[in-house]
C-alpha cells in the first residue's frame, strides 16, 4: 500500500510516493539517493542512521517515511556547507581523528550537533551519555568525545 508524502529534505521540498512500511532511512538512501545516512543494524541500536527531524536527532531506521509528512528532515549532506568548508562539528572530528572507517561518522556527527545545540557546557560525562545511542567499532570513542567538546567551544556552546 502506497502513500504520498510531502516534506522538506535539507531545505528543499520533496514529494514522493512510498510504500506505507518504508522506513525513513530507506527512503533517504534509495529514493532520494542521499547515501550519507547509513544502516548498520536491525534494531535501532547503532545510530549510524541518525538524522534530524525538525531539528532533533532521530534514528531514521526507526521512523516511517510517512511519519516525516509535513516535517523537515536534515541529513549529513544538509549540514555540510556547499562551499566546500566544514561544519564546526565536522571540522572538529577531522582535527581530533574522531573517525576511521567513517561508517558511524554521519550518525555520530548528527547526534553530536543535536547534543551540543541543546545542552550548553556539556561535560565529558554528558557527551558520553548523549552519544550512547551511537556505536563505533573503530575509534574507541575517546577522540569522538574530544571532537564534540572541541566543537562545542567553537560553536559557542
Amino acid at each position: 500500500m502506497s502513500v504520498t508524502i510531502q516534506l522538506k529534505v535539507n531545505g528543499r521540498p520533496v514529494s514522493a510516493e512510498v510504500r506505507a512500511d518504508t522506513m525513513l532511512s530507506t527512503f533517504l538512501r534509495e529514493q532520494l539517493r542521499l547515501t550519507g545516512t547509513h544502516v548498520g543494524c536491525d534494531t535501532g541500536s547503532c545510530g549510524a542512521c541518525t538524522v534530524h527531524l525538525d531539528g532533533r536527532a532521530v534514528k531514521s531506521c526507526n521512523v516511517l517515511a510517512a511519519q516525516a509528512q509535513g516535517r523537515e528532515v536534515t541529513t549529513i549532506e544538509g549540514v555540510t556547507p556547499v562551499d566546500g568548508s566544514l561544519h564546526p562539528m565536522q571540522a572538529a572530528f577531522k582535527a581530533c581523528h574522531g573517525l576511521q572507517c567513517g561508517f558511524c561518522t554521519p550518525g555520530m556527527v548528527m547526534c553530536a550537533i543535536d547534543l551540543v545545540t541543546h545542552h550548553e557546557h556539556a561535560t565529558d560525562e554528558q557527551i558520553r551519555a548523549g552519544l550512547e545511542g551511537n556505536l563505533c567499532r573503530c575509534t574507541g570513542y575517546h577522540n569522538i568525545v574530544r571532537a564534540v567538546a572541541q566543537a562545542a567551544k567553537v560553536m559557542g556552546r
Partner: protein
Amino acid sequence: MSAVQPLIGRSIERKEDYRFLTGAGQYTDDIILPQQTYAWFLRSPHAHARLRSIDTSAARAAPGVLAVFTSKDLAGIGGLPCGWLIKSIDGSPMKEPKHPVLAEEKVRHVGDPLALVVAESLVQAKAAAALIEVDYEVLPVVVDTAMAAKSGTAVHDMAPDNVCYTWAIGDKAAVDAAFARADHITRLSIVNNRLIPNAIEPRAANASYSRADDSYTLYVTSQNPHVERLLMTAFVLGLPEHKVRVIAPDVGGGFGSKIYLYAEETALVWAARRVGRPIKWTAERHESFLTDAHGRDHVSIAELALDRGGKFLALRVHTTANLGAYLSTFASCIPTILYATLLAGQYAGGRLSRCRPSGSRVSARAHRRACGPRAAHRSRRAAPAQLHPRFPLCQPCRAQLRHRRLRSYPQSGVGFC
C-alpha cells in the same frame, strides 16, 4: 636551498575524512546499478540438520521474482576453499570437508544459506523466500568447544570425532624434561571466548555480468579484493581471473571478518550471469552475527615450569580451538601458525611452548564460522603464555612478579611494556 620539512614527527591529516564526514563516502550498499535486482538468502534456523527436500516452486512464482537457486543449480562449481593446509603431528593432512556455496544435503549452523532468491525488490525477495518449503531432519548439535571431540555427533562425515587436525610446535622432549626438573609448575585453565567482529557496516556485494565482453564486475566489502578474486575465480567458479573485476570501495570496518571469500558474493557473481542483471545483497545485522567469521573460541590448559629463582624453564600449552561449522579461508592457520608461534612472547628460557592446538568443529546453535585472523590478533595480547600479570606464579607482590619476568627476558635485553 629551501629546507624540506620531514614528515616524521608531524601531524598529518587524512585524505579520506572529508568524504566520510560529509556523507560522500561510497560504501558497497550505497551503490545501485541500472537494472538492479535484489538478493535474499534463505538460511537454516537449525544448527544441524539434514536437508530432505527443498521446494522452491511457490517462491519462483512469487511477484517480482526473477530466480530462486539452490545447490542443485550450482552443481559443478567448487566449494569455498580453505587456503592454509595444516598437517597433524602424525604427518596426515588436516580434514578439509567441502564448504559449499549453498548448503548441500546438510546445514551445519544457524544461518547456513541454502537458497538464493533474486527479485525486483528486497521486499519481494524476502516475501518469496518465506514461500520456500524445506523439509529438515533435525540432528543433534555440538555447541561445546571443549567437548566437541567427545560429542558423538559428527558435523562432517569425514571427521567422525569433529577434529580437523592435531598440530604441535616445539621440542616436546626438552619441555617434558624441563617440567620434570622444575621447582614450581603453574597450571592455568583459560577460556578465550568467541568473538563476533561486528563491523558497523554489514557485509554487502553487488555483482553484474556483461555479455558484451563476457566479464564480471563485483563490488564487495572486502579487505583484500585481489585475494577475493583469485579464490573465487580459481577455486570456485572456474573463471579466467582477468574476466572478473573485484572492487572494494569504501569499507566500513572489517577487523578480519571481511578478509574471507564468502558464499554470498560468490553466489551473486555466479547468478549475475544467469539472471542477466546486476544483483545486490546487503547483510542485515542478524545475518552478520550468524555468518561473519567469528574469532577466538579457544579452551586452553597452560603450564609454566619455573626454577627456584622464578626463572621460566618451559611453557606447555594445550589448546582446543573451535574452527566452526565450516573452515573459513584461513581458519586452520589461526590457532596454529598465528597463535602458537606467539606464545613465548619476548621471554627466553630453555625450550618454550609446546603448543598443541587441535582444531575441532562445533556446530553452534547461535553461531557459526571458523576463526578469523581476529583470533590471532587478540591472541597476541590474550594468549595464556603472554604471562599477564595475573598469571599466578604463587602469591607474589607486583614487584616480585615484575622481577621474575625481567629475569626471563632474552639476554639481548629486548624490552616489554
